[in-house]
């Protein structure tokens, strides 16, 4: 494994932020760490970055304990963003690349192409404080990846970006993966993870509840989810035999079935009472899987991530 976390634990005064968490991150993949706010994602990342020290457990990078040389091989975008406001884009990028030990000639050559790619080329000699929040975020992303790190760690990379920029960053990440870099990112927005990741790991209350490739994870859960679009009162569906759980949305419901239940039986029962506009058997979404696995109180989760999910 490229990056290996072995039973790391971090306790704060009144709670355990990360509880015996083990992760195996293979080289060259996009690895998503997902979980609601407060699940322990940022604490885990900070421990990988050696910013905070785990109470117990070990972290190995490339077979060795994380040390000084790791600092030069990693690109880190923290959840809390910030750059020197009074420096120009060029100065900030150069300074941070210098601190990574990246050759200054290479930095100078890479600045313009990167900024061009992020649609920031025209601001290169302006001060950071003149950028909008989204632009500053893209600039920070550039400073994270410009020094060609072997491993890129992004904490909540997409928060605060508009859909166009999310798409832009996604494409860059896919390119970086193609170049052979390993990308670890955390998000509480499951849809993004679903579209981008090779591997995922779900964390809840400091513990890993699930991990594997997206395909594996989904296969594990089988095609046991139906979405039914309808008009009328669909509450009775929840009480039908073979229904394990139901989530109501604006004009449709998502139903997870007990193993061995045929989707047809649900359709038959529904047709009698409702006007069906859509009926679809589908793979469960990561969100569903997460709910299922973590056994989190739905109300709590909705309060935290609901807005982003729909």
């Amino acid at each position, binding site marked *: 494994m490229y990056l290996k976390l072995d039973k790391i634990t971090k306790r704060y005064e009144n709670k355990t932020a990360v509880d015996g968490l083990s992760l195996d991150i293979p080289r060259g993949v996009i690895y998503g760490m997902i979980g609601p706010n407060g699940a322990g994602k940022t604490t885990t990342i900070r421990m990988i970055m050696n910013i905070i020290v785990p109470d117990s457990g070990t972290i190995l990078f490339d077979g060795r304990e994380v040390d000084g040389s790791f600092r030069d091989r990693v690109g880190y975008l923290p959840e809390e963003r*910030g750059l*020197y*406001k009074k420096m120009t884009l060029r100065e900030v990028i150069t300074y941070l690349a*210098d601190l990574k030990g990246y050759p200054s000639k290479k930095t100078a050559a890479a600045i313009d192409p990167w900024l061009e790619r992020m649609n920031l080329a025209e601001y290169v000699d302006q001060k950071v404080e003149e950028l909008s929040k989204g632009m500053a975020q893209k600039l920070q992303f550039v400073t994270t990846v410009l020094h060609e790190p072997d491993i890129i760690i992004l904490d909540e990379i997409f928060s605060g970006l508009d859909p166009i920029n999310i798409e832009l960053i996604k494409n860059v990440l896919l390119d970086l993966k193609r170049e052979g870099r390993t990308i670890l990112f955390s998000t509480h927005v499951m849809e993004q993870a679903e579209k981008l990741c090779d591997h995922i790991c779900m964390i809840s209350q400091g513990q890993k509840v699930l991990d594997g490739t997206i395909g594996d994870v989904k296969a594990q859960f089988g095609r046991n989810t139906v979405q039914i679009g309808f008009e009328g009162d669909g509450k009775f569906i929840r009480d039908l035999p073979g229904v394990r759980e139901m989530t109501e949305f604006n004009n449709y419901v998502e139903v997870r079935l007990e193993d061995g239940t045929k989707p047809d039986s649900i359709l038959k029962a529904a047709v009698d009472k409702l006007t069906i506009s859509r009926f679809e058997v589908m793979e469960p979404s990561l969100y569903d899987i997460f709910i299922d696995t973590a056994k989190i109180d739905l109300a709590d989760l909705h309060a935290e991530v609901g807005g982003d999910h729909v």
Partner: protein
Amino acid sequence: MSKFLIIMKREYAQIVKKKSFLIMTLLTPVIMAGFMVLPALLANKDVDTTESVAIVDRSNQGVGAALAIALGEYTIGDSEIPTYSIDSIIDISPSDDTRFREVIDLLTGQIDAREVKYVLAIGPTPHLNDSSLLLITNSDDFRTIRRFEYELSQILSKERLESSQVNIPVDSVLALTHRISLTTKNTSGESIPFEIKFFTALIFVMLMYMVTIINGSGLMRSIIEEKSSRIVEVLVSSVTPFQLLAGKIIGGGAAALTQVGIWVVAGLVVSLFAGSGSLEIDPGLAQIVFNPVVVIFFVLFFVTGYLMFCTLFALVGSIVNSDKEAQNFVFPVIIWMLPALMTGMAVIRDPYATWVLILSYIPLCTPTMMFERVVFLAPSAMEYSLFSGIVGEAMLGLLGVIITSIGITWLSARVFRVGILMYGKRPTLPEILKWIKQG
């Protein structure tokens, strides 16, 4: 290039590029020179317009008239213009108190109306009674007051001699009793006037104080900025907190040294001009500022003191979250430099007083207090030894400062490491102690 150097370079450039740095660099010597030179210049400046004097004489012996003649001798500079014009001499009988009071009231009114500058009232028996002489004025020109005193003494001494039965020529008595002036020399045979020692020490200490506070609080603000802009998290993913702390302190120190260096070079240029005769430099002052012991210890105490206080400022910066919060912690840091500024007068009177010795060995006070003593004592020392006398004491003090600085750095690095990543609530003292233990 090592990461420490990269950080240092940026800190240095950020400080030196600031307009405030340029302004401070230019303004400080001007202000310092102003403090040093202007009062002396102004105090030495003689009267340059004729000032009017009114004399009220109740002596009945012509003292007023004699004084008027004596004052008439004074001229402005080398010109023929008299310094004092006698507005009036009013003779009043010794017994006529009513008239005297009227006249005084009238003349006082004239002073307020700026028609007369000085009113000299001579009482009935001036040669017997010193308190019968009264000067009314709103001016504090000690030079003029001295002249009045001198001339009146001369006149009244003559009066006294003549009224006594001594059979010696009056003029020769006056010559024989001429006032002497005492010249002080120290054990090495030099004489540096008290004021020069005092003000030079004060100015050096002031310089340390200003440079340390300005750069130290700048360092503190820059740490708070890195903390509140969250960039610190990116930084500590690239460098160790210790590299960051050291780079910032040394970078700031290099900027401060640049500033002081500019001042020193400017000072040397000025003193070269002084050497060529176009500008007079006080020989006493030269004995202090060109004394090798003073110069060496200024640099040593300046640098170590600077590092010690900057580390403290960095410590504060890593604990607090905003400039406003930091204000509460600035005073406890700078308070250690204040004794030297406030007690200089007492220190020069007795540089070996017990409390002075105690203060100068408290490491946080040493750079200023001990240096003050170096200025007062070193130029008059007969010989210098590394292990005794003021040099020995200063070396011991320096050792204390260095050990303390290392201790504070060790402490700060531990607190800094945790503190810079703590946002929001300010940590309590027990929490900080825990960080230090965890290290």
